[in-house]
């Protein structure tokens, strides 16, 4: 696996509120995720793991410290530059799927490409390929609500993959799914680093899902308290 960083947190502090109401969500995080690495983040509710994802995706800004995506400091960028970086480098999968109900599954996946100026025919071709990659081959012109929960999550993953992003941020992506569908989604995510060189950062409460990761990062009270890194051979 390449050790070139795709995501770097340098002494990142994040606080909410001010004065006596100030809450520290992150208390000086240092974290590097390499290209093609699968990292799981675990910890009790409120430990700051989702905040890490929001900062990594530029959805929020650090109170101090630096967040770099592919070597670029998000703080040095204008809002349009950050939006462009997000579209080109970073994909998201959330528990809430955020699929647009009035667009077909194929059109949902085409959307990020069309926002990037890709022509409709080319976008449709690439969207179909991305949907095939996640195991969806049929009824691609049906609407999201005509698919099961697991299939809808696959559509969301296809949408996040279609623009060949190098970093995928997944926040409890299986929250609303049953066990079988959940396992399938995590197995699918686990294949992405080897297939496309995509780095995956997965926030989860489930040890079973975290066990697929190359590295598990444990957080508590806004700090990283430990890490578990699997040996490259996986031999016990």
């Amino acid at each position, binding site marked *: 696996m390449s050790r070139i960083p795709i995501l770097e947190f340098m002494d990142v502090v994040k606080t909410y509120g001010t004065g006596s109401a100030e809450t520290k969500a992150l208390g000086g995080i240092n974290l590097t995720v390499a290209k093609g690495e699968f990292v799981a983040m*675990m910890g*009790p509710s409120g430990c700051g793991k989702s905040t890490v994802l929001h900062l990594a995706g530029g959805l929020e800004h650090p109170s101090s410290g630096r967040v770099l995506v592919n070597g670029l400091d998000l703080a040095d960028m204008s809002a349009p530059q950050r939006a462009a970086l997000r579209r080109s480098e970073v994909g998201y999968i959330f528990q809430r799927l955020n699929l647009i109900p009035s667009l077909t599954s194929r059109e949902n996946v085409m959307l990020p490409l069309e926002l990037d100026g890709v022509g409709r025919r080319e976008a449709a071709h690439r969207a179909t390929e991305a949907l095939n990659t996640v195991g969806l081959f049929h009824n691609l012109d049906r609407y999201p609500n005509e698919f099961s929960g697991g299939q809808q999550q696959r559509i969301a993953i296809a949408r996040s993959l279609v623009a060949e992003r190098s970093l995928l941020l997944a926040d409890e992506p299986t929250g609303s799914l049953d066990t079988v569908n959940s396992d399938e989604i995590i197995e699918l995510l686990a294949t992405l680093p080897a297939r496309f060189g995509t780095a995956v950062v997965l926030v989860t*409460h489930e*040890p*079973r899902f*975290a*066990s*697929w*990761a*190359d590295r*598990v990062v*444990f957080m*508590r*009270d806004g700090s990283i*308290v*430990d*890490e*578990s*890194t*699997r*040996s490259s*051979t*996986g*031999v*016990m």
Partner: protein
Amino acid sequence: MAVRQGLLAVLSDGPQHGYRIKTRFESITGGVWKLNIGQVYTTLDRLERDGMVKTKEASDSKLYSLTPAGKSELAKWWEPDATSETPPRDELVLKILSALSLGTDQALKVVAAHRTALTLLLQQRRAQMNASDKDMSLATRVVNDSLLMRAESDLRWLDTCESRLLAERAEQKESAR
């Protein structure tokens, strides 16, 4: 699983020689439970003494088979045992309880260390399973599933411990103000 009942289960397939019983036992337990041949013969002798198996001289060695009492013992073993209400004296539980007696910080440290170690075990086991998935026997798969799920269950328990300890520590801080 007791070796005794395991050997009875092997014999439910029909009469067998001692060595065959040993290899069959090892095969049905997914290769994680090795027996030495001496232990097999000692256990078979005891089962014969207790009337659970009988022997018949064959050309080169003894053939062992189940008696009606052995079949009944085995049938009883398949049934669930819901009589024990005492939680198992698990070493991990004992470690956390002991650490707790030294304070919540020490207990949190022990919880974190064990969680990391167990997670690593889970990661490695998963990688091993993925690497050899196609060649794995059903028994080995079942054993691996069991190991994974036990580790998972311990991890869940450690997470719950951590939540309780953090709540306790927050309460202690609050009352100290």
